[in-house]
């Protein structure tokens, strides 16, 4: 057996032909275009702002400056070049470990440019600097990015939630206090001379005789004072509302590093939550004057944490937990199920480096829980998913945010590149599952953010120069095996085949994964490049190929779930505007015309068409009357004459009164009346 085949089957090198790859800095061949990220424009770094949107990309921010100050022509081109240079310097600063706000890093970047090109650059940049209107911290795609970004968005969401609740609670406190105040003013003490004096103010007190006023007010009209039970209830409600520890300055912390600690905090606070919900409910009832002691006292006497509905809990702050899926003893993974299936609004940011292991599968496992908002994304895609991250944080129930930060091999490769490679290869696909988005699974799950979703894995053009320096082009698939090359823990699954060994039995790993190449006669390989961008062929062992197949299967299952939706979407024809045909299943806007329910001999009114104009009811208020909608009907035909029926029909401007035939054949002038009634039959 030749050495490549032996390595592929066993994972061991049998001779000296194959070379190990550990610590040689080999990268996937498609990384060749991304040698220096500081010279490229892409989503990162990001600016975390206090405004809306909460996060913007630095490139987008600079493009906004350009649009704001330069409309076109040479001036715009010059401004664009200057801004690009600042942007590049900021990227270089961040890559070198700098940190700070937009303002600070701008100044630092300009200082570096001044060092290179002189003071004129600073002067040229002054108008651009003045147009920089957004402040905030700049964050790059590094190990801390997921936590910083998610925490920032969580604070924004919670601040808005807290503001709304605080406003509501303050409003209730203010209005309840007015009740208490009004009660005092009507009390004996409130009507006393000292209280009246205190109510006027110091300057004009000498103009009033407060004792006389107090005597005048000795007997106020109406009942005096609130019942004692109501006063006590309002006082205790006010105490709870004013001391609540969830919103405002006294709010407790809701951010945790351990799932068990967060769960314990939630359980401990449940009684306080029940107290607040009860207080708000009582306050609203009191303010609406709708508190009925016989009904509500027993209900609220038994009101405790078990009575809290999910909607109640959703009004309170959510619990943000930053957890590590790869902790040594698996405690986090064990607690995860409890946290996600309980009623606590847990927002769990789960970071994992173990893309091929358990950590990488937790999000897809959580899909089965049904009402958990699940978002999986590598950190490189988080900016693109920012709105969905926000949706997860706003979601009324628990949410799991599973993120691959992309920090492997101690950061030898830029985390952005590694994280993007995880998404690109389907090893860690981006998906969101929003239980509130639709009633069916297919529409709840979205694969937005995954490149070329119609393929098992993306395919890209790849060009290189051969031995004769001639350009060769081919198309390379980027599979989980290619991604594995970024992970030093999997380096032993690769071995380099020297140029002399590039035989026909070596086939691209993608061909083996999708079954295009025969398993018995071939050995899978991937293209790699070294530090000088020279191409290498690396054979792959069967163990890694199995891992790759498993992730490919997981992707296929995700695609199967969403496929029905996309098929439906693709084949749907937009609805043409059409007149809604009157059909049996449409809600009727009006009752059926009364004529269908009457014989032609009986007088009737098309009541639903009555315009309440009072013509008929003025003519004969006993024969014609209004129903509960103030629309006329014939209440008593015998209460009037046929003549009045005909007259009412003639007077009705919308012609909805139908006199029918006369009941009394002896009524005078019947022939003429029947002739007049004929148009209304």
């Amino acid at each position, binding site marked *: 057996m030749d050495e490549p085949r032996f390595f592929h089957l066993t994972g061991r090198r049998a001779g000296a032909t194959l070379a190990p790859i550990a610590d040689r800095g080999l990268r996937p061949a498609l990384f060749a275009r991304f040698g220096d990220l500081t010279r490229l424009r892409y989503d990162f770094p990001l600016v975390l702002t206090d405004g809306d949107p909460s996060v913007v990309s630095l490139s987008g921010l600079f493009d906004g400056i350009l649009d704001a100050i330069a409309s076109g022509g040479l001036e715009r081109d010059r401004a664009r070049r200057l801004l690009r240079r600042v942007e590049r310097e900021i990227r270089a600063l961040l890559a070198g470990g700098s940190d700070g706000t937009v303002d600070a890093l701008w100044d630092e970047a300009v200082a570096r440019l001044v060092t290179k090109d002189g003071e004129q650059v600073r002067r040229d940049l002054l108008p651009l600097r003045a147009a920089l209107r957004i402040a905030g911290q700049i964050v790059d795609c590094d190990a801390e990015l997921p936590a910083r970004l998610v925490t920032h968005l969580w604070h924004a969401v919670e601040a808005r939630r807290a503001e709304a609740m605080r406003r509501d609670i303050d409003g209730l406190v203010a209005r309840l206090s007015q009740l208490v105040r009004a009660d005092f003013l009507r009390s004996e003490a409130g009507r006393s001379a000292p209280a009246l004096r205190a109510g006027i103010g110091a300057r004009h007190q000498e103009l009033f005789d407060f004792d006389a006023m107090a005597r005048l007010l000795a007997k106020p009209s109406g009942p005096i004072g609130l019942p004692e039970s109501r006063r006590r209830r309002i006082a205790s409600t006010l105490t709870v509302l004013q001391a609540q520890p969830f919103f405002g300055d006294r709010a407790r912390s809701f951010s945790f590093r351990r799932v068990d600690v967060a769960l314990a905090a939630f359980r401990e606070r449940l009684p306080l939550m029940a107290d607040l919900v009860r207080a708000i409910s009582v306050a609203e009832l009191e303010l609406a004057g709708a508190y009925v002691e016989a009904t509500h006292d027993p209900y609220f006497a038994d009101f405790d944490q078990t009575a809290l509905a999910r909607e109640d809990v959703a009004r309170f702050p959510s619990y943000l937990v930053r957890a590590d899926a790869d902790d040594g003893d698996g405690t986090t993974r064990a607690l995860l199920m409890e946290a996600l299936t309980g009623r606590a609004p847990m927002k769990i940011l789960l970071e994992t480096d173990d893309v091929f292991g358990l950590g990488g599968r937790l999000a897809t496992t959580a899909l089965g829980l049904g009402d958990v908002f699940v978002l999986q994304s590598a950190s490189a895609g988080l900016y693109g998913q920012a709105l969905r991250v926000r949706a997860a944080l706003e979601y009324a129930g628990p949410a799991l945010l599973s993120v691959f930060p992309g920090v492997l091999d101690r950061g030898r490769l830029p985390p952005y590149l590694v994280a993007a490679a995880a998404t690109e290869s389907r090893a860690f696909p981006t998906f969101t599952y929003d239980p509130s988005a639709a009633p069916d699974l297919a529409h709840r799950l979205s694969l937005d953010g995954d490149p070329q979703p119609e393929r098992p894995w993306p395919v890209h053009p790849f060009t290189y120069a051969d031995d004769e320096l001639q350009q060769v082009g081919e198309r390379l698939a980027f599979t989980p095996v290619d991604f594995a090359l970024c992970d030093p823990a999997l380096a032993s699954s690769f071995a380099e085949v020297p140029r002399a060994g590039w035989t026909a039995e070596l086939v691209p790993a993608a061909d083996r994964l999708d079954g295009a190449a025969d398993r018995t006669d071939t050995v899978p390989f991937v293209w790699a490049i070294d530090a000088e961008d020279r191409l290498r062929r690396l054979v792959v062992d069967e163990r890694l190929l199995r891992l790759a197949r498993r992730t490919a299967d997981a992707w296929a299952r995700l695609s199967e779930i969403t496929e029905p939706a996309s098929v439906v979407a693709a084949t749907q024809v937009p609805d043409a505007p059409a007149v809604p045909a009157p059909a049996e299943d449409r809600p009727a806007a009006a009752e*059926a015309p009364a004529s269908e329910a009457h014989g032609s001999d009986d007088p009737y009114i098309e009541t639903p068409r009555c315009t309440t*104009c009072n013509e008929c009811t003025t003519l004969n208020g006993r024969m014609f009357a209004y129903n509960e909608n103030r629309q006329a009907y014939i209440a008593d035909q015998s209460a009037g004459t046929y003549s009045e029926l005909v007259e009412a029909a003639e007077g009705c401007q919308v012609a909805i009164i139908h006199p029918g035939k006369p009941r009394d054949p002896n009524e005078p002038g019947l022939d003429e009346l029947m002739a007049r009634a004929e148009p209304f039959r």
Partner: protein
Amino acid sequence: MIPVADCLLRTAEAHHDLADYRSELVPRWCNGCGDNAILTAMQRLCRDEDLAPEKTVFVSGIGCSSRLPHYMNTYGFHGTHGRALPIAEGVKLSRPDLSVFVSTGDGDCLSIGAAHWLHALRYNVDLTVLLHDNHIYGLTKKQASPTSPLGTKSNTTPMGSVLAPLNPLTITLGVQTASFVAQAVDWIPDLLYQVISAAYRHKGLSFVRILQRCPEFMPGLFDPWIQDPKRMLLLSHADGVTVGPALAKVYPNVRAHDPSDRAAARAIAEVEDPLPVGILYRDPAVPRYEELRHVGELRTVERVRRGLEAELDRFTIWPEDAATP
């Protein structure tokens, strides 16, 4: 705010009947006047939405239309001529918890109150505005109004009016921030009710023009449309007002119209025959003034006092011989 309270409130609140919204005053409108139908539609709405009478306000200006608050057993404000809208805006801004309706007429709103009309549309405060449009000043015994048809003979135009009438719908739709525009007629009460109901539920200023008969001073004006239902054009859409089979049987001329289509709404607004009725335009995304100006702090007595004192302190002049405070 919290669902449990909603639930309990429902158990405690009284259910209202239509009679609960009728005041003790008997309407003094003429027999056959379209205002009666508008009043009834409003009372039905209040009943069906279970609006608490003490939380409901009707504001009006001057004219036949503006008598409506007297006949509602709710709070009311019979304002000055043309000023119903700014009064209503003030009520709503001070008491956002109230449901505020405006009854105004073609003279009140489109003539002396025209400036307020345009700016109310611009502010988009959450009000339901009913424009009772009978094409005439009726209360003052027949003078031409801004919507009187060309040639209308009245006390102010004895030789016939020479100015073309205003079209309130096209003007309203011309204001970029108009968020709800509809037209109804008093003689199709079911549609009138549906339109008003949709207007009430719209968050923002909903402008409903109601073509209304004045049998005393403009007799027969709308007879061509009343007597020939085919000349009515009913706008129907799932996002607007749906026309049921019974109504479609009487008024067969039904057209699908998406209320989010502003261009189509403008085109429809210009049509006078057949007469379009239904929701012409609706955009719930237009920002409301109360949202834009909201400062996030309750206007409590303490806050107002604090602000006043701070303002007055700016002008306090201490006597020279007074001790420094």
